[in-house]
Structures are given as C-alpha cells and as structure tokens.
C-alpha cells in the first residue's frame, strides 16, 4: 500500500481544527464588540485600526488552518499547491498596494478631481423623500383621518 493518493484523514485532527476555528471566529466577534476605551500606552494608534488589524489577523490564522489541515496543504509532499495558494496572496497584495498607491495619494502635484460633481447622493435623496413624506403625513393626517 505504498502509492496511495493523498493523505489519510485523522478524525482527531479534524475535530481539533473545528474547535480551533470556532474559538477563533468567536475571538473575532469578541474583539469587534470590545468597548473602545483608551488603553494606557496605546494612544499612538487609532483603536479602530488596531481592532481591524487584530480581526483580520485572526481571519488570516483561520485561513491558514483551513488551508493547511482541512484542505490538506500541510500533508503534501510536493509543495506545488501551497505555492499556488500563496501565489494568490502575493498577486492580491500587489493589486491592493499598487491601487492604493493611486487612490491614497491623488493630488500631490496636480489638483485631483476627487470632488464629486453634478450628482445627487441617493442617501440625500432618500432623506429628502422621507422628510417630505413625514411632512405630508403631518399635514394630511388631520384632513383625512379615515386613512
């Protein structure tokens, strides 16, 4: 039985992985719900950002557990699939960094056209509509109580 394809699943590992994932997912929720009070010595960083980083850090751990154990990357002799998987993140990192190099730095030399012109925000439109409705409702109510 030498050339059996893949790896043999181990139920103990599966259960442990499952528990770890639940704990980490719970951790993400707990961190996001934690109150944002100033913690001594942490005033050099925006706590919202810190929270986001911690949450995405936990998500990254979860992803590596899922890919390593459930998807079996850890058990492979050839690391090809791992390279493919990590390649994804390399390309995506490039994508976000370079696009951010544009979006984050517009208008340094020449004026940028970030200002939104000639548009009406759907949010404002909705707010106006609601304001109009409630006014109408107030005016209309005494005249037509039957409604």
């Amino acid at each position, binding site marked *: 039985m030498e050339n059996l394809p893949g790896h043999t699943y181990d139920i103990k590992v599966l259960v442990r992985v499952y528990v770890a994932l639940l704990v980490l997912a719970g951790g993400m929720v707990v961190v996001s719900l934690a109150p944002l009070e100033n913690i001594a010595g942490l005033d050099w960083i925006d706590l919202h950002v810190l929270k986001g980083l911690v949450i995405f850090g936990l998500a990254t751990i979860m992803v590596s557990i899922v890919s390593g154990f459930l998807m079996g990357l850890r058990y492979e002799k050839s690391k*090809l699939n791992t390279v493919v998987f990590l*390649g*994804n993140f390399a*390309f995506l990192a*490039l*994508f976000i960094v*370079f*696009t951010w*190099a*544009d*979006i*984050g*730095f*517009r*208008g*340094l*030399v*020449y004026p*940028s*056209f970030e200002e*939104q012109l*000639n*548009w009406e*925000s*759907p949010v404002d439109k909705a707010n106006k509509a609601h304001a109009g409705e409630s006014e109408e409702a107030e005016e209309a109510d005494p005249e037509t109580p039957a409604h």
Partner: protein
Amino acid sequence: MSAHAENINYFKASKGFMSWLVTVDHKRIGLMYLASILLFFITGGVYAGLFRLELWGPLPGFISPDTYNHLFTMHGVIMVFLVVVPGIPGALGNFLLPLQLGAKDLAFPKLNITSLYLYWIGAVIALFSLTQGRADSGWTFYAPYSLSQNPAVLWMLVAAFILGFSSILTGLNFIVTIHKMRAPGMTWFRMPLFVWALYATGIMQVFATPVLGITLLLLLMENFFRIGIFDPALGGDPLLMQHFFWFYSHPAVYIIVVPAFGVVSELIATFSRKDIFGYKFIAFSSVAITIIGFLVWGHHMFVSGQSEVADTIFSFLTFFTAVPSAIKVFNWTTTLYQGSIKLTTPMLYALQFLFNFTIGGLTGIVLGILSVDIHLHDTYFVVSHFHYVAMGSTMIAFIGGIYYWWPKMTGRMFNETWGRLAAVLVFLGFNLTFFAQLIMGSQGSPRRYYNYLTEFQIYHQISTAGIVVLALGLFMALFNLLISLKNGAIAPQNPWGARTLEWTHAETPPVLYNFTETPVVTQGPYEYPTEKV
C-alpha cells in the same frame, strides 16, 4: 474501443459531424479552435478594413460617426477576446502540448471540450449583441461610458465574461498537463520552449483572468443595480474600474504574446538546425515576463488622473519588462548566427516576427516614459505599438506556426513558392499599414477619431493601401493552405528535420492516442547531430 482503433490516425478514428462535436481528443479540439479563430480573424479584419476605407479621406465618407465607433469596437472586441487571446494556446497549444510532452491527451479532456464550447457560446453572444444595438464602448469598456445601459454593450460584457472563463479553463488544463503528464525522461529542461511559453501563459490565464471576470461582473451589476462602485455619479471611482481592468488586461498582453515567443523559438531552432542559444534564459524569461507583467498595469493610466506616486512607480517598473524581452530577442538572433538557415515559409514568418517585435517592444519602452507618454497617449503611436505586438508579432508567429505544423496536423505539404510569396506580401502590407501610423501618431494624430486634419491624410492613405496588401497576403496564405488539403503532397513524418517529439515519435497525422508507444526521452528538444564542415 479496440486496440486497433487506437493506432489509426485521428481523422479516421471515428467519423461524422457528431464525432467532432462530442470529441475529447485534443487534436480535433485544436483544429476546431483553429477554424473558429481564423473565421473570427477574417471577421475582425473585415471590420478593420471598413473603417480604414472610411479613413481614406478626412471628411465623412460612406459610414456615419456612430457606425465608425461601433466598427472599431467590434474590431477590438473580436480581435482581442476571440482571436489573439485564445489564438495560439487554443489552436496550436491544444494540438501540440500533449504531443510535445509525450502524453496521450491533456489532463482534462472533457474540460478541454467544455472550454471550446464556452468559446463558441461567448462568440455567439458577441455576435448576438449586434442585434441588440451598437456596442461602441471600445474593447476596454471604460466606465462611466460603458454604464450607459446600452444593451449591446451589456451583451458584449457577458460574452467577454464567458470567453474569460474559457481562457481560465484552458490555462488550468495546460498547467496540470505540464506538471503531471510528461513522458518518462521529459525533464523540465528537456521540454520544448513552446511548452515553457504555454506554461507561463497558463499562469497568467489562471491568475489574471478572474479579475477580468469580476470587473465585467461589477460593470454588469453597476448597469443593472447602480451599485456605486465604479459610477462617479453614485460616488464610485471610475479609475478603480481601470485598475481592475488593466490588472487583467496588461497580463493579457503577455497572454497574447508569450505563446508567440514559444512558436518562434521552435521555428528558429528548427530552421537554423542548431540548438537554441540560451535555452534556460529563454525559458525563464517567459516566466519572468509573467511576473513582471503583473506589476505594470498602471502605465495604461498615466493620463487618467491616477496619482503621481502610482505613475512614477509604474513607469519605473515598466522598463523592467524590456529585460526579458530583450534577452529573448538576443538569444534568437544568436541562434541564427552560424546556423544552417533554411528560408522556408515558416522561417520567413519567424524572421518577420523578430523585426516587428523589436519595433513593437521598443515603442513600448518609449510609451513607458512618463513625460513622453503624456504626448503620445491616445495617438496612433499607441495603436501602432500594440498592433506591432498583437498583429505583427502574435498573429505573424501564429501563421508561421500554422505553416510549420500544418503537415503534422493535416498530413499534407503546402506549396512553398506561394507560401513564401504570401509571407513577403504580409510583411510589406503590415509594415506599410502600421509604420505610417507610427509616424502619424508621433506627430500627434489622435486615435479613434472619425475625422482628422488634412495634413495626416497621406499617412492614412498609406495605411489604408497597406491593409489591402496585407489582406491580399493573408488570403493568399490561407488559400495556399486550403488548396494543399486537396492537392498537397503527402507529408512525411518529419519534413523539417526537427527534433521535438511530435516530429520524431508521432506519425503524420498522429494516431488517436498520439503515440503507438509512450516515448522515452533521452535528450533535449533541439539537440541536432553536429555536422563538421
């Protein structure tokens, strides 16, 4: 299937129209790709011919401005998504990859036929869009113009989405085949360079095309539901759309041209009767181009309002693409040096490729310079640059490859004299058409314009005359091949004296499962017996 059936050639293994439609044989699928792609190449060419005729004179001619926009859009979409992107991998790659590796088929034969069907579905939808109005957004589908809910543009987006899927599946199939299906003794550095090129292409198809998919999907969503991600009228960022688009479409330029590198490597080695110079450099430069190709998309956006920081980074990185490209050109040239060169028809195309690609590549460097690009952006210079790459390099190498492998595919030899004559006409016609545009562009004539200043008329006329010569050459090349099907001499197993497996070990035409027995590879792909003079 009996053991006997496996040893007769793939044309005769089964008969009838249906046997082609349900086939999983990579050779038949390759031929069906070839036929479809040539059909669309002619279609796209007809569109180009029409608007070039219109541009004979500056004043409005026989077509209206709206029709003109529609024509160049159709030309772009058809040529990019239906011809050059699937072209060499779909037709030549499908046919040759297993043969060159010594495998019986691709790793996923059913997936292979699926991707052909997706190609057909995409093509039919693209043509169907003609009945829904006039697509006029250009092949780039830039927001916000593509968000104007033009039904023809919407169908075109759907078509491009499906074609992207077809491309992903082809690339996936190739990568798995190259990794897992090589014949005994076929080590990585014994693979023909065409296989290396397809490998590099596969990486780009798998990693870049999905981003095109999501871009088109977001454009569709934006059209239907106004989600406000790309549409500036809803708070979206139209430049984000361009980032998404070019993150695919710049690598797509390499999806287009890298397979051509592979074809040319085969042709030059075979017809110089010499081991290719710097095999590993050519192989790795294909992979290097793949990686660098992902880092430079922003050079399409220098004048779009992109931040100066991004401009500078992208301009800097763009220059690096020249390095692997130049390595290849130098290696091919060195291979020619002191080779026993035979100027056969395929070789004539390979030499044209070298000439055209050098111009195409160098003009690319010019465009990568920030300050120069501000002036040349959206002029005919850009048009000429990418035609020198997409048409002058890719399609020329494609035609050369078709000629080279034609005997293997069909079992017939073509007429060499007519073939050479056609190759010369193609060379003249192509350079006449696009060199004129290079000059006109450098003088500032903007592209995609319906009207132009009278001082540019002479260049437009040269260009239009050139396309007539080009068309003549292309049709001559095509008819030469078609006539050979009936009248051509029966091809021997290895008419060119090449050293790769499809010539040395497979019959002409190959049997159903390619080889009567699995070849065992003991030497590199270009090891010619040394002849002492």
